[in-house]
């Protein structure tokens, strides 16, 4: 892992998991940034707060006849847990789930790592970041 000093990027993500390629792209950006030693803030709002839900379960594929193990279904929460593991003691990954959005969706049971916040956090993150990328759904 290379280091990039005190650079920080903030990403605001709105898409719920399993609906668009945007989720994958956003997680790839986070992954690449952490590997470069860049701190990353993620502000997940609206459907994106479902990305970190702990209860996401893998499933078999009855069409192909594959088992859960064979399918090795990737979940967004597993991806994100991996990102926290990647960050480790190196670059900081600060993942904030919008509390209002969480409450609306009953999506409060999430993996270790994310924290609850609000739009004020996005403003603060943006003010303190090298750059901010807002990824909307429309």
């Amino acid at each position, binding site marked *: 892992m290379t280091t990039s000093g005190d650079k920080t990027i903030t990403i605001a993500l709105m898409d719920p998991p399993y609906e668009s390629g945007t989720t994958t792209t956003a997680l790839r950006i986070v992954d690449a940034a952490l590997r470069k030693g860049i701190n990353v803030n993620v502000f997940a709002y609206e459907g994106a707060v479902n990305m970190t839900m702990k209860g996401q379960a893998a499933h078999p594929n009855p069409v192909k006849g594959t088992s859960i193990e064979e399918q090795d279904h990737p979940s967004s929460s597993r991806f994100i847990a991996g990102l926290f593991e990647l960050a480790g003691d190196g670059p900081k990954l600060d993942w904030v789930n919008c509390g209002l959005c969480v409450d609306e969706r009953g999506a409060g049971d999430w993996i270790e790592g994310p924290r609850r916040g609000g739009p004020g956090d996005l403003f603060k993150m943006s003010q303190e970041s090298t750059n901010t990328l807002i*990824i909307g759904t429309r």
Partner: protein
Amino acid sequence: MADYLLVESRDPFEYADTSYFYQMAEDLCKAGNNVTFFLVQNGVLMARKGISNDAVARLRSAAPAVKILADDFSLRERAISADKLADGVTSAGVDALVDLLAEPGVKAVWH
């Protein structure tokens, strides 16, 4: 002069409003700014040769200084190999996108 990173994730076949984003890239470039136009997800469908109503070709013609990159992962997902890329489009990894995002002052816009 400012540095812009425009990330286009959509294709004109599904979203008519992509034309505004291509136009914005052209206008920003003509106004003297440095513009990188990064195609990702279905946006890379426009990176192929031989498309009719070719938005990438129009952008290159109108604003040749715009740097057009196409996400290699998105290209591979869609079986778009290097020999099928349109002139002026360069395949790039997400690392290139992150490098630009990590540059102070770069204005990043996602569509």
